[in-house]
């Protein structure tokens, strides 16, 4: 379909700005592996300090890239399926708020006033503009949901018996999850952290802040993942040359995410004080619940790809895999999707380990954790974001892809780098290697009394993986901007491959309606979080004053108790 210049402009900005920022984001990823391997034994390099770089890495890659893309991809999806553009003013407002937030937070981080990492746990204190920037980024991303809800309601009135397109359903479910979970982090920043950071309140309840953050924090990863899942269900089968095995399976999976994404946050706090073991165990059970839609997806996508493989003559239990278009330049999206799926096998499996209550003692906050989450957020999420960004830009600008052969190879290079990196990190983590730590200064410094020779091979592996990924990432950025610099050679159109379903089940009203699921979501959240918040309230002691990263002395006196 044809789209307006304004629509294109906003989408291009929302896609291109994060890709440009990836230069900084991926650079800092590489740097960390170099520090951690002890190749650099300093606290900073090129005027940026380790923990400042770590903050930039997490915020740019895991918050900015993902949020901007989810909004842009949502706009594109709704527009394509409903053949109607969203409200222009609201699109601009959303973009401006998000961009302002990013600029504020970036200033704070680059000025060294917000080296608090993307989780910003108090009482380590950042400059107020960091928290405000994060809040604006999130608030800006709320706006599209309300506009899309209006578009959807109108469409539904005109099409009461038609199944909501699966991609649209996924987008609306994803942003519903997002809106609900971000309420907690918005409360944390607006009520707890910003007044404290400005000096208006003297102290903060750290346990409450953490619990609110993780109410947000786990659902955050599904906000990252669901756009990729939407692509796997509705785009990948077409691109692979096959059909979606079951459309209904996708809907069931999406609604299960709606009810289970949020009430599981305490599994990030298994090692925390104040929350009782029973509450933690319950969140663990619910987390097992949220693994079910991923198992459904694994099978359904495999079946969809098998269909494509057999159509091209694949035989045997696994032989069909060879017949898929891994290196087809005209279907480069396949490479990005399959690369992500390969990594997600390991990302998902290690995630189940992390969710498993007492098993968490073995891995929490060790290098195993980033080993796990780079195979999810930096696996299917990252690859589908960058692949789809390139695809959408190319189609909507009418410009051919720059270096198309290289474009198809990059995801496989990334996968190899990631497997090496994550293997090193996971193994190191099992040996006690901590995450979020500048190992080069002490633990990987032979001159230090803390030196751990058994972490040398694992950190070296992670560095090798990091170097390979850095190269792949930089090549991608070259290709993206190379494509931007090309001259238009085709008519610009908004197009998304749409997969046909093998089982195109008749509309099941229960899996095409929001109300019962939203009610269930709220009930489960209340059951899982009211006890947790009560625990925090009962078991917390004094609130904490603020601390700068370089000084054990609190910034101001705690309020008299």
């Amino acid at each position, binding site marked *: 379909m044809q789209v307006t210049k304004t629509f294109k402009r906003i989408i291009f900005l929302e896609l291109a700005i994060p890709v440009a920022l990836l230069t900084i984001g991926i650079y800092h990823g590489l740097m960390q592996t170099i520090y951690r391997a002890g190749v650099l034994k300093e*606290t900073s390099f090129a005027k940026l300090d380790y*923990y400042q770089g*770590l903050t930039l890495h997490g915020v740019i890659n895991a918050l900015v890239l993902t949020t901007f893309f989810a909004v842009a991809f949502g706009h594109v999806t709704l527009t394509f399926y409903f053949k109607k553009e969203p409200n222009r003013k609201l699109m601009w407002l959303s973009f401006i708020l998000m961009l302002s937030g990013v600029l504020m937070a970036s200033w704070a981080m680059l000025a060294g006033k917000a080296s608090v*990492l993307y989780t910003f*746990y*108090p*009482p*380590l204190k950042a400059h107020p503009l960091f928290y405000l920037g994060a809040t604006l980024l999130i608030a800006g991303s709320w706006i599209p949901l309300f506009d899309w809800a209006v578009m959807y309601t109108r469409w539904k009135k005109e099409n009461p018996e038609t199944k909501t397109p699966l991609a649209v359903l996924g987008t609306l479910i994803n942003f519903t999850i997002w809106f609900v979970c971000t309420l907690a982090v918005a409360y944390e920043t607006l009520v707890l952290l910003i007044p404290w950071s400005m000096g208006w309140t003297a102290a903060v*309840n*750290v346990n409450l802040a*953490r619990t609110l953050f993780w109410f947000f924090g786990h659902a955050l990863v599904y906000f990252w993942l669901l756009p990729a899942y939407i692509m796997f269900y509705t785009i990948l089968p077409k691109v692979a040359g096959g059909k979606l*095995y*079951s459309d*209904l*399976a996708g809907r069931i999976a999406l609604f299960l995410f709606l009810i289970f994404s949020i009430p599981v946050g305490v599994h990030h706090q*298994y*090692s*925390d*004080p*104040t929350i009782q*073991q029973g509450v*933690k*165990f319950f969140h663990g*059970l619910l987390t*097992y*619940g949220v693994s079910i839609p991923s*198992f*459904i997806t694994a*099978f359904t996508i495999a079946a969809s790809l098998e269909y494509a493989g057999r159509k091209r003559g694949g035989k045997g239990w696994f032989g069909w895999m060879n017949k898929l278009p891994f290196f087809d330049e005209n279907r480069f999206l396949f490479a990005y999707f399959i690369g992500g799926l390969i990594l997600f096998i390991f990302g998902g499996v290690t995630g*189940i380990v992390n969710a498993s*209550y007492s098993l*968490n*003692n*073995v891995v*929490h*906050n060790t290098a195993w954790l980033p080993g796990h989450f780079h195979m999810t957020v930096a696996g299917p999420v990252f690859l589908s974001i960058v692949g789809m960004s390139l695809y959408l830009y190319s189609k909507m600008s009418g410009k051919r892809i720059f270096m198309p052969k290289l474009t198809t190879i990059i995801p496989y290079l990334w996968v190899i780098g990631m497997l090496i990196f994550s293997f090193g990190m996971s193994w190191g983590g099992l*040996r*006690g290697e*901590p995450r*979020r*730590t*500048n190992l080069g*200064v*002490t633990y990987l410094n032979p001159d230090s009394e*803390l030196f751990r020779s058994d972490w040398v091979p694992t950190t070296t592996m992670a560095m090798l993986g990091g170097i390979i990924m850095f190269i792949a990432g930089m090549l991608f950025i070259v290709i993206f901007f190379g494509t931007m610099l090309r001259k238009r050679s085709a008519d610009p159109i908004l197009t998304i491959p749409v997969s046909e379903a093998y089982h195109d089940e*008749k509309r099941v009203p229960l899996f095409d309606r929001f109300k019962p699921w939203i009610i269930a979501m709220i009930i489960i959240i209340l059951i899982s979080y009211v006890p947790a918040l009560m*625990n925090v309230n*009962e*078991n*917390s*002691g*004094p*609130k*904490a004053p603020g*601390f700068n*990263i*370089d*000084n*054990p002395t*609190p910034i101001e006196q705690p309020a008299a108790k």
Partner: protein
Amino acid sequence: MKMDKIEKRVIISSLLLMSLFVFSLLYAKNKYKTDVPECLPYDKAYTEPKVNQLDEKTYQVFSVASMWQFQPSEIYIPVGSEVDFYLTSKDVVHGFNIAQKNINMMAVYGAINKTSVKFDKPGVYDIVCHEYCGVGHQNMRAQVIVNYPRSK
């Protein structure tokens, strides 16, 4: 509702797999006492670093994490002792990880964490801070030294 038979079996198998894990976790909790840290209400008494010997084989350690050390930083424990670790923070959030013994706790201001462990092998056990806590984070490490008690 007409849902593909195989998809139904996929859902059931995943649920069975998760149930197997739940069973194993409960079994391990029962037999080996594996569990996440215990929850305690806040008490100022735990904010002073201490090592208490309750009897010949039982110790309590009140560990206080701060920027950038654990107090006490060297803890001597005889082989075969059971130790209850109590943990809090005087400032920012810290981690407390004794990898070889599954001890993994967060030290948080205004809260008390607890876990118990039996040291039946001699050796030096590192307590590593694994949560970012400022510029000195990578220097923050303590040790539990488990040895045979000196004969009297």
